[in-house]
């Protein structure tokens, strides 16, 4: 592990990133302010994905189900049962915990391509379930959570999550929590074991590690972070729809992470931000924007195989976590 100087530098860098995000709240024009809030929540999703894909080397194609578990776990009780914001958020996280625990227990019996397929199939089942119970979820059309339901009463005042600044700062706060949680995990002993499993699972086992238990812990942590992102999405943006459970939302976090740099703590944010704006800008010129996105991805894979931050770390900044 790196020395104390490097540790201080790592925490300083992450603190600066958070401070910058907070400062942007007061600077950004309205449109970009809204975009960035959305990007931050999706970046939490990407960070959860990165924990499993980047650090443990498990490629899941089913993470939409964890995001959607959070989305529905928070949105449904708020919409149908009139839960408050805080219990609804806890409900979303709890749903993500349960789904990832069950899926992890079953899917981790496989590895490699089989793991990809099994997770994808589970996610498809989840997606179809959200459509099947259309009476409650209203399927693709989705539910819109009303403004008065998305408020937290604190003593005498209320925190209105539909207010742009509150929404943005809530997203930053949750992003910061997820970022520092990820940072703590990957720098911990457990994190070192996860990387060892990625590098050589057989060897890790022969050092006395229960690799199944470690991988299961990683699937659940990843699932919980993604569910927290889903729950936050429902509460901050007020929309709960089955699009978020579709296969597209399993592939997007993979692309975000690959772009920004797998197994880097800040890569997911960079990748999500970049991709969001590429789609946003190109789609205003042409309806064939996915063509441009595809071309960019091919270029990235050819020249920046390790993503933006992964390449930076290889060439110049070896201390980057």
């Amino acid at each position, binding site marked *: *592990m790196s020395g104390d100087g490097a540790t201080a530098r790592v925490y300083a860098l992450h603190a600066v990133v958070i401070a910058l995000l907070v400062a942007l709240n007061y600077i950004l024009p309205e449109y970009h302010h809204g975009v960035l809030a959305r990007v931050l929540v999706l970046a939490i999703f990407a960070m959860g994905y990165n924990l499993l894909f980047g650090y443990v080397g498990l490629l899941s194609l089913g993470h939409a189900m964890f995001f959607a578990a959070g989305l529905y776990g928070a949105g449904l009780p708020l919409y149908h049962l009139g839960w408050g914001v805080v219990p609804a958020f806890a409900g979303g996280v709890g749903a993500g915990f349960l789904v990832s625990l069950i899926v992890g227990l079953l899917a981790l019996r496989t590895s490699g391509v089989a793991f990809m397929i099994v997770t994808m199939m589970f996610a498809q089942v989840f997606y179809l379930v959200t459509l099947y119970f259309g009476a409650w979820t209203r399927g693709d059309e989705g539910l819109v959570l009303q403004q008065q339901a998305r408020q937290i009463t604190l003593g005498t005042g209320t925190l209105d999550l539909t207010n742009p600044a509150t929404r943005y700062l809530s997203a930053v706060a949750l992003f910061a929590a997820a970022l520092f949680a990820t940072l703590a995990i990957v720098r911990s*002993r457990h994190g*070192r*074991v996860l*990387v*060892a499993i990625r*590098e*050589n699972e*057989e*060897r*890790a*086992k*022969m*050092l*006395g*590690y*229960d*690799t199944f238990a470690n991988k299961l812990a990683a699937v659940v942590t990843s699932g919980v972070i993604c569910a927290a992102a889903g729950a936050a999405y429902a509460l901050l943006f007020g929309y709960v729809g089955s699009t978020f459970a579709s296969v597209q939302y399993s592939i997007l976090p993979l692309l975000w992470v690959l772009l920004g740099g797998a197994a880097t703590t800040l890569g997911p944010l960079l990748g999500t931000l970049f991709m969001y704006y590429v789609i946003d800008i190109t789609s205003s010129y042409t309806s064939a924007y996915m063509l441009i996105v595809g071309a960019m991805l091919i270029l990235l894979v050819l020249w920046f195989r390790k993503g933006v931050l992964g390449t930076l770390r290889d060439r110049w900044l070896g201390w980057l976590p």
Partner: protein
Amino acid sequence: MTALLTTKGLSRHFGGLRAVDNVDFSLEPGEIRAVIGPNGAGKTTFVSLVCGRYAPTSGSIVFDGEDITAMPAHLRVRRGIAYTFQITSVFANLSAYDNVALPVQRTLTDGRSRGAVRQGAMEALERVGLAGRAHEQAGTLAYGHQRLLEVAMGLALRPRLLILDEPTQGLSDGEIENFIALAREIARDATILLIEHNMPVVMALARRISVFNAGRILAEGSPAEIRANAAVQEAYLGTAQEAEA
């Protein structure tokens, strides 16, 4: 003295091949035991059964009075059985330090401070003479150093039984000298099971030798007895001397 490790009727078949066939084996604590035999004799399969990488087809394994036949590999490691791989199997993309920190942090049941891991890891690296290369990436180390790192990882587990699978393969003469000294030092507080093709190393280290051939133990005895055994010469030593010539 009670045996540290015993196997009874231990077998492992791969299809029709009896890789390990009805092996009764016993190892005393504090011993350095060499396992020799021609390629394909079942040596690596045998130790893989002991450390739990393969499940046996039949038979039983007892370690320190406990039946471990059905125990998963990682729990056997925790009981004190360490295996160093025949094919160098260090974590190539991690630093040498991280490679030994992994076994050290697993064995540390007391004290959660980072200092304890650092101290243990540096000690293990020092014992094999790699302390100066702690922050080099393991995959970029010279081959001989990777072999030593592999041994350091085994050592860092503080094993009671250390299984070394062809540790001197690919080492230079000077490195082999150092390895022999290191193995003697390790043997002061651990039992060693050594698979080795290099006869001078075997003769220098082993108190007893087990000769495997076609999945069975062909002979067992002191180095002098094995050297004098006609069947062994025919099965193995003759060809080994030819190979060395």
